[in-house]
């Protein structure tokens, strides 16, 4: 026990060291880009900071971004565990939003909002899970790589949203990019007024983290996902059916993503809009990779990414810089983290385990 604690301790130290090094590299890189663009780097960082943590209102916005990002990250932890690249998570968020909206449209008169909201969340989870299962079946039965299946389904989901907004679910009289008709106030998730933050969403995200940690560490499903992910070809030795567990992982990922979509509809936009998923699915892929597939680190990374996203919104106004600077920082971070990971792997093979005769 002592030994394993020790190794855990050194692993944590190494991770922190690498994280700091990564951050230094990334900010030097970003600073260089800012200098090349002729912008004052310190002012830009200050604006991002002020724009994300400068007021309760801003913090509320950050958390509103953090919630779907965290939910998607939790979902991706299941699929990464079994070595699936669930890039279709973006479409799963959209499907969750669609299913949620579908149920809520029956409660537009504002009666029994609690029941409709609960049903809507269940529907959202189901929608995301079904969309994930499509990709899962294409993978396990059709032999189509989950990246291609997922990407394809993302476009389909986006098309369905646009069709609904401009077709069957268009606002009376007009169809516009701004989305479907606003939901009645009764169907909005309750929120803290001075932060514009829905507490229900926050609670759900925290529960998702706890559930995921529990599932991955202590349940048989978690162990089976890890085993199959580490060696598909040895699954037969332990009588595990890889297809079954791939589908289970997809259901979890899709379910969490669908819930994120539901919260976007009921807690943030209060309607279905074309950009309802806001690329949070794609961003969550980066979050999980950067956090080294760790369930406790990903919420922190998600928070940092949320800060960058919200903080960079005011860059165009204040410094005439494009807000895509946050994307530059996030992309550079992930690339740097992957390089770091590759180095670690290389160091490991150079060291050569001694038993390996």
């Amino acid at each position: 026990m002592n030994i394993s604690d020790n190794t855990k301790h050194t692993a944590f130290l190494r991770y922190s060291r690498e994280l700091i090094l990564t951050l230094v590299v990334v900010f030097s890189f970003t600073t260089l880009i800012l200098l090349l663009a002729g912008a004052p780097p310190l002012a830009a960082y200050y604006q991002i900071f002020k724009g994300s943590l400068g007021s309760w209102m801003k913090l509320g916005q950050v958390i509103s971004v953090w919630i779907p990002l965290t939910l998607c990250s939790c979902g991706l932890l299941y699929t990464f565990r079994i070595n699936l690249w669930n890039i279709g998570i973006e479409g799963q968020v959209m499907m969750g939003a669609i299913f949620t909206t579908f149920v809520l449209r029956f409660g537009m008169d504002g009666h029994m909002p609690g029941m409709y909201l609960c049903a809507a969340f269940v529907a959202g989870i189901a929608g995301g899970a079904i969309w994930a299962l499509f990709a899962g079946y294409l993978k396990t039965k059709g032999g189509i790589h989950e990246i291609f299946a997922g990407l394809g389904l993302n476009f389909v989901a986006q098309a369905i949203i646009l069709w609904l907004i401009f077709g069957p679910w268009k606002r009376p009289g007009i169809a516009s990019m701004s989305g479907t008709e606003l939901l009645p106030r009764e169907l909005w998730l309750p929120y803290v007024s001075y932060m514009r933050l829905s507490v229900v969403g926050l609670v759900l995200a925290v529960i998702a983290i706890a559930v995921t940690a529990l599932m991955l560490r202590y349940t048989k499903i978690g162990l089976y996902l890890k085993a199959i992910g580490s060696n598909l070809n040895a699954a037969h030795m332990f009588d595990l059916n890889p297809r079954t567990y791939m589908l289970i992982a997809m259901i979890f990922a899709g379910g969490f993503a669908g819930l994120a979509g539901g919260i976007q509809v009921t807690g943030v936009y209060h309607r279905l809009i074309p950009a309802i998923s806001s690329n949070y699915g794609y961003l969550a892929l980066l979050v999980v990779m950067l956090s080294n597939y760790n369930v406790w680190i990903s919420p922190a990374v998600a928070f940092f990414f949320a800060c960058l996203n919200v903080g960079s919104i005011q860059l165009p106004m204040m410094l005439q810089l494009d807000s895509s600077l946050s994307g530059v920082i996030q992309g550079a971070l992930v690339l740097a983290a992957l390089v770091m990971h590759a180095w670690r792997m290389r160091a490991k093979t150079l060291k050569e385990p001694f038993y390996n005769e």
Partner: protein
Amino acid sequence: MRIDIRDIHKHYGSTRANNGITLTVKPGTIHGILGENGAGKSTLMKILSGYIRKTSGKILVNGSVCDYHTPAQAAKLGIGMLYQEPLDFPPLTVLDNFMAGQTRGIKNQKDFFRKKFESLVDHFNFTLNADGAVEKLTIGERQQLEILRLLALGTEGLILDEPTTGISREQKESLFQALKKLASEGKSVLLVSHKLQDAETLCDTVTVLREGVVTGSVDQPYDAGAILEMMFGVLPGTPSRSAVEYGETVLSMKQVYGSGGRTGLSNCTTSIRQGEMVGLAGLGGSGQEVFLRLAGGIKKPSMGSIELLGEEVQGKNLHAFKKDGVVFLPASRLEEGLMPGLNITEHFALQDQGDGLFVKWHEASGTAQAKIKKFRVMGTPESAVESLSGGNQQRLLLSLLSKDSKLLLLEQPTRGLDVESANWVWWHLHKYCLRKTSVVFSSSDLDEILMVADRVIVFFDGRIVKDVKKDETDIDELTRAIVGKAQ
């Protein structure tokens, strides 16, 4: 090429894999390095080939001290290593593999290299076809290819790590001929092995390692007893065999066809009874692999009927095979048998497939501890399986088997193991036979099959060409059957 190894140390933490090794390889000789698993042979060879760094010590090539630490630098000095598992590019053709690392620039030099390749093949009497696909080759043929490639790169000192493991008798002959030819041309050959017989037939000098130090160095002619004592300290015993009563039929195949491997399996009809120990002989990839996988439910037959305990298996999935107590253990333990990245406890936790949502970690860790002790696995419950040696991985796999297994199907169960570990494996499997479990195994070592099996089935070109009781045959008859000259 003359290679002097002076006082080489390699320490991993407190473990000394090499602890002051000194030896000299003279030019134009074949030098054997013997020792059991874990003696430090592979470590020493990896240092010599630049794959890992030494902790201290000197290496002299042709009299001058050389400090190198990558395989590429070693190659420049003329030192090349043939690894236990050939390092090649399976999707490419033989010629493309041969050219890899040799071509420079963008000009297509295929014709030039084809000539070079073919002259080398002729020179060594190998059987390689330049346009064949590497993935279709047997381990022995891939070895031949790798040797030719190393020679073409200008290798003067060739290191071979357990080259006779998993290859056929014929390929071994041809390999030995080639090595002798190399030595007669002034090149030095270093042969790492735990097979005494190989060293006896081939090596001019033998150096024995045990626990990281040299325990002795002898020239031809050898005293086998003395070498064994240097290797093990004490002589290992042979596994005991006693008569077993056979029970009813466990597995029966009727006109079964299956695909896979080099030849697939054609028209296979046979049956296995309770308590039988059956050895499958044949050149690598002659149908034994497919046979074992079909019997284990890993593959489906394309035609024919397979019955387990009197019941047709058609339409049953792997889970049903497992429930009937059929277990298949593959030859490549880390690729198909264990989960790299998971530790020993996690492997035992995986076995518990009872009800309940949660993993019983405490129980699993207890089981792991007990099994490690009982099966003498060198490791702790927290050891990742990829850090175990081949012998210990095999012990772990065996410890994962259920006691109630009805049919064990083992692919080369002693591949890469030293004599002692192999004996232990046979002793353990024999206990299964006493409990009426049927054991079917493949092996490339006929002596081993004749030593442990009750019955031998010989495969040639995807067909069963011989099926006899051990007492009714001899090694010559089996050898002829293996190369397709039965009768």
